[in-house]
């Protein structure tokens, strides 16, 4: 029996520990400031190993290889990388049914961000929906539910699942 996450003390470390409890054991990605706390945490936690990827689509391939080998992969990336990944998701993950948990920071949300993030921020959800990729917006209060839901998609339907991360959810480290 796992303890329920206390909403007021939701941190990068608690979230990473929850993923590890749920048997996620392979972590890679391309950084985003919104995910900097998570990535630092992965570099610090002993039972996790984070592999830096140079492009988001390469990270998709890496996670696919890990899954084929029996691991349970997690891919961390900014939504700007979604464009690079669409062909990988549609012509690899979705047709072979190779799942991956994607933790995707949501830059440009609500039109308030640097100019380069605004269009992708506006269309990220629509792109995911159009591609047939399921997602949830991660919140401290829904963390347990959405992780369970993602696990069902991953284990039963063998499909990728994305958790969108808004600014301010996790601590940022510089």
């Amino acid at each position: 029996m796992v303890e329920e996450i206390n909403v007021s003390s939701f941190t990068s470390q608690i979230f990473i520990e929850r993923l590890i409890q749920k048997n996620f054991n392979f972590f890679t990605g391309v950084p985003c400031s919104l995910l900097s706390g998570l990535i630092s945490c992965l570099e610090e936690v002993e039972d996790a190993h984070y592999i830096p990827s140079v492009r988001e689509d390469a990270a998709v391939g890496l996670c696919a290889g890990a899954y084929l080998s029996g691991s349970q992969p997690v891919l961390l990336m900014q939504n700007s990388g979604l464009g690079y990944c669409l062909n990988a998701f549609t012509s690899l993950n979705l047709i072979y049914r190779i799942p991956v948990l994607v933790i995707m920071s949501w830059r440009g949300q609500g039109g308030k961000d640097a100019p380069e993030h605004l269009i992708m921020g506006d269309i990220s959800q629509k792109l995911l929906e159009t591609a047939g990729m399921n997602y949830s917006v991660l919140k401290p209060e829904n963390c347990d539910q959405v992780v369970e839901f993602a696990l069902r998609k991953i284990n039963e339907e063998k499909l990728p699942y994305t958790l969108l991360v808004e600014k301010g959810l996790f601590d940022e480290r510089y």
Partner: protein
Amino acid sequence: MFQEIIPLLKDEPVVHANGFICRESFALQDREENFYMIGSMGLASSIGLGVAICKPDRKVIVLDGDGNVLMAMGTLAMIGAEAPNNLVHVVIDNEVYESTGKQRSISNVVALEQVAKSSGYREALRVDKKEEIKPAFERLMNSEGPGFLLIKVEACFDPKTGRVTHTPEEIKERFMNTLLPH
């Protein structure tokens, strides 16, 4: 070149790049240990890297092409950085995108084996004669990796060669079964 390498394979997982590499290998000898990547151009190397990292006790082979490597040159850097000693990256370099009609690639001027070497592969070999393939491949298979073997070939793919007939899910299932712990 497949005729030279296929007889040397035992039970190694082999991740195939899309296009003629998948099709020709499938037509010559289908193996359950073959992962035929029919789409996602550029990603055979990263898929192979993932397998190599997670299966350190298996020798893992990526059968790649020049177009794929040029598309994902950053993955060479990732392989060099992670440096899995069980990965052998074979690149069949015909200097064209052969399965789409032989449009030229730029590998006639880019020495991919030097890119691999600079990226941190332990050994990177280049061969251009048929009889050099076997000794070079065996040398890499029997030494610490990551190893890189560039095989320069003429473009001679027969476009009548069939496509992989297994469904993507079948390819995945049987490949995964061969990777289960014995």
